[in-house]
């Protein structure tokens, strides 16, 4: 996760306004506050995470993303971020639209379900993958919309979303070497920097 932040931090302008959807304990916003002096807000529904944000001095709003984001005005943020949560949304494509409405730019990170180990798990064991990154059983997982790097590329094309940057993250050798050649197969976590065209 910490690797995600270094990319995101490069894409966020100093003193800008950042909204983090599903901000967890607020560590990304805290990092951006300290590095770039941003004005940040996180949305979160988990009480413990909310408390951690408050203790860290991170602005946090208790709000369920699945209930919509209509209380945020068009273009009211420089950057809207969502890390590792798009796959847990009821309507990921609509959330993406909302993010691009509210923010001039968006940063999305998600687990790539096309990663070869995930594929191998399903292929050879014949069961839904339970990995370190996706550590849930099929029946209790909050991740209800699995998708791959390639799926996301198609979605961006279909919805005319402009990809400013994309980064592929892999932890292990040889994935680290092969991810640029076959991103859909060797990327564990994909990081996208998007804008409206």
């Amino acid at each position: 996760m910490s690797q995600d932040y270094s990319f995101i931090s490069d894409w966020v302008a100093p003193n800008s306004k950042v909204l983090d959807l599903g901000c967890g304990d607020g560590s990304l916003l805290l990092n951006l506050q300290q590095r770039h002096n941003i004005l940040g807000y996180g949305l979160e529904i988990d009480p413990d995470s909310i408390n951690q944000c408050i203790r860290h001095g991170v602005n946090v709003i208790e709000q369920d993303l699945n209930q919509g984001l209509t209380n945020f005005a068009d273009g009211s943020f420089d950057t809207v971020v969502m890390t590792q949560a798009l796959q847990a949304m009821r309507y990921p494509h609509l959330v993406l639209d909302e993010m691009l409405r509210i923010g001039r730019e968006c940063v999305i990170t998600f687990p790539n379900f096309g990663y070869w180990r995930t594929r191998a798990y399903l292929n050879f064991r014949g069961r839904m993958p339970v990995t370190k990154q996706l550590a849930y059983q099929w029946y209790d997982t909050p991740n209800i919309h699995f998708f791959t790097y390639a799926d996301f590329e198609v979605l961006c094309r279909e919805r005319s979303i402009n990809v400013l940057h994309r980064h592929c993250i892999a932890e292990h050798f040889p994935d680290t070497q092969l991810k640029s050649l076959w991103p859909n197969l060797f990327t564990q976590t994909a990081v996208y920097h998007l804008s409206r065209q």
Partner: protein
Amino acid sequence: MLPNSPPDNSIGILSAQSVRIEQPLTLACGVVLPAHDLVYETYGELNDERSNGVLLCHALSGDHHAAGFYEGDDSPGWWNHYVGPGKPIDTNKFFVVSLNNIGSCFGSTGPTSINPDSGEPWGSDFPSLRARDWVESQKLLMEHLDIPCWAAVIGGSLGGMQAMRWSLEYPDKLLNAVVIASSMKLSAQNIAFNEIARRAIKSDPNFCDGRYLQEGTAPLRGLALARMIGHVTYLSDELMGQKFGRELRIGDLIDRNTDPVEFQVESYLNYQGDKFSGTFDANSYILITKMLDYFDLSREYNNDPVAAFGHAKCNFLVVSFSSDWRFAPERSREITDALLAAGKSVSYVEIESDKGHDAFLLPNERYENALGGYLKRVASTLCVPTGADK
């Protein structure tokens, strides 16, 4: 518990202080109070930098006795669970100031005080008040205590309205506003309940057009009824169900011959009403419910809450309670959205509770953690000179 052995985490035995503010106070209605009395309590120590002052703003029927015990009294102040050493409003870290506001009836100038012009109690002639008048009077107390800037202004319900008003009237005089179970303005339903309460008081023959003190009487039944109505709206249906259900206190509904039958909830409400009418003043109740009705945070800012909060400089914590239907979570979300749109630092928590509006006074672990966590953070930034952390 015995007053001589208050619990370890209590402030302990204390007594109220009072001050006569000699500076004239021009009220929003134009009337000038040449001088006024304020009764208040303080908890904790003011630090050398005089930077750890926290102002507590009470609600409709509140008073200055927020925490600790009076000598010989076995019940503590109204917010004792939240104010004390190691508690969310930590008196080891903060110098907490809690006053009785003007227009109320616990020693500060109000309808039961003598009007210097007539030599008689003010009664219903006491000038109409706005929340900003309370803020102005609190500002004079702040000067009296020589506190240059509040670390936080905190209040629930009408108290939250004062905290918000502070942030607009004196943006450089507070670093944080904690707005709990409050609203930027009352709904029609809310005003309706207040009017029923006022009508109940005025319908009591002993009200005597508000001159009951001169007549040597008091509209106790009317005030009790007003309180009973209010009390029901401060609780949730769920909580009343849990607390009383259909339990009977007297009688029996199976044996049809037993005549008097009384539900527990009837007995409880009557008790609460009578207790209240024995301690509160009817004219104060009318005056302060009107103050609630008249409050509209953004009226003078073109009815635009975002423009209003544009004047604020402090950070905000907004808290609501899920079962509160008198000051519903939607009202707190409106406050939060306006603050967000104005680009102010704000955190918002919606606490799950079945206790209705009264939840802001009652124990609740999540609420304690949120408020305590926020204020811990405030305390940790106090050493930094004002503005340097921005």
